[in-house]
């Protein structure tokens, strides 16, 4: 123990041990799921069933379905989850014959064009062809609304008010625009299923006005569930294991603390 503290810079030993053990746990588990292909069990998020009912209701009322995937400024877990949800919704609109509208654009001042737009088109096309509905794919509207993410949402709000869709699914990187996307979806009577990573004031606006909401860590989990991608599934499983270790650490902290000695807080700031 003595030797370790001279190599590692003073006060950073515990961070070093924790960071590297977490990184090794994630690396091993993700590597195992990728090589064996055996996907760990994952709880089904409630919003997934809601998507099916929402598209079904939209078809009954003969109304369109609008599905967006966020600002897509960077390919973080929220954007990946948004794209996986988009292909899942597209499969339903293909089988049930609802007309789908996918608002595109945004990114970081015009960088969405060359990056997310082709990916989104590709996902919807493969969803429709996998259901044998190539000719319906031509009816899918994927308008490029603006280079600025907030202006994309303003145009989506105008679209909501004009078309009064049956369902509005929007999971992904959403910030301030959550308020008027959620509020106007409720006002025009659309079933709204929404999610944005983190738990902040913007996500609170979704909780206030949406019918189904995907909160914080549930966003990458829903992406992993829908895409069935072994990397994401393995990563969610590894993160749960690290959370168990964290809770054990906290539990030991209390035991040490209630015995009066501050062994734990001394250890953790080594």
């Amino acid at each position: 123990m003595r030797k370790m503290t001279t190599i590692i810079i003073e006060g950073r030993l515990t961070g070093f041990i924790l960071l590297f053990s977490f990184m090794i746990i994630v690396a091993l588990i993700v590597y195992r799921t990728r090589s064996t292909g055996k996907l760990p069990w994952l709880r089904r998020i409630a919003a997934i069933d809601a998507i099916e009912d929402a598209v079904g209701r939209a078809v009954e009322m003969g109304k369109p379905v609008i599905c967006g995937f966020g600002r897509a400024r960077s390919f973080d877990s929220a954007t990946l989850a948004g794209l996986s949800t988009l292909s899942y919704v597209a499969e339903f609109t293909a089988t049930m014959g609802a007309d789908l509208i996918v608002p595109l654009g945004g990114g970081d001042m015009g960088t969405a064009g060359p990056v997310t737009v082709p990916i989104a088109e590709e996902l919807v096309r493969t969803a429709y062809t996998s259901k044998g509905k190539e000719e319906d794919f031509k009816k899918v509207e994927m308008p490029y609304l603006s280079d600025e993410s907030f202006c994309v949402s303003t145009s989506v709000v105008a679209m909501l008010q004009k078309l009064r869709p049956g369902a509005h699914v929007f999971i992904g990187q959403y910030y301030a625009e959550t308020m008027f996307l959620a509020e106007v979806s409720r006002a025009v009577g659309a079933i709204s299923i929404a999610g944005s990573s983190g738990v902040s004031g913007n996500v609170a606006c979704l909780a206030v006005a949406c019918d189904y909401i995907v909160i914080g860590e549930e966003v990458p989990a829903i992406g992993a569930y829908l895409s069935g991608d072994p990397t994401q599934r393995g990563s969610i499983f590894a993160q749960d294991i690290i959370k168990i270790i964290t809770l054990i650490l906290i539990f030991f902290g209390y035991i040490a603390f209630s015995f009066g000695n501050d062994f734990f807080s001394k250890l953790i700031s080594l």
Partner: protein
Amino acid sequence: MSEERINTVARPIIYLATFLLIGIPLIYPVGLPIKVSQSTIDFYNQIESMPEGSVVIMNFNVETFGWDELESQLVSITKHLISRPVKVIYVSDMALGPAFIEKTLKMASPQIEKHNKEYGQDYVIAGYLAGESAVAAIASDFHKLISVDYYGHSIEGTFLDDVKDGSDIDLVISVDCFGGTSPYIRHFYLSFGTPILTGTLGGGVPSAINNVQVGQIKSYLGGIPGGAEFEYLSGFPGVGITSSDAMTIVHLMGIALIILGNIVLLSRKIGGRV
């Protein structure tokens, strides 16, 4: 009346009422009382406690959309810093931020003359810092990134000559509308224990409170109320105080609408059951 009817009728009325309830108290201020909260007092005392000649980084994490709310904080903090014997480095880690540094200093120019502060000796505008890596760079080796100021003039001969890295910075004040504080926590507080103060939009208050309780920042100012309180405390009244009446009235309208909305829900439920 169906849900949709209510929405289509209520919406324009609510928008107009919101506009009027803000506009009228701005033209004819009512002068409702402002009580300074403890977090603003701690914020003020932290600046007051800075010894003479200490170096302060003021970070404008301000986009165009954040200016209207953070103007009262930025102007009053800048004026208060100018009235203190401290040296200030003005930076911004948002592309549109540097324009607001100049706008704020122009508004504070009476104070600059009064305390005859000199550019280069008392304050320098270092301008834009591109991303978290730029913040980390000035923490690890200031002069490797910054050799000229925002106007392109060399910083030789200014007080920056004896600022080598993060350890020479005595206080960081980050007024942010898009998470501008965490890079300073990571690269200044963790490595050098630099005290940090955060000014934030209303929405950023809950995470600022957590940062205070965890000890990563000393205190915070929240939105226009925070700005108004600091204006009041530092003796530089400005747009914050005049907006406080409108903010109070708008809050009352918001609460009234929540209650009204639930009465409508209740009446429909009872109506439905009867």
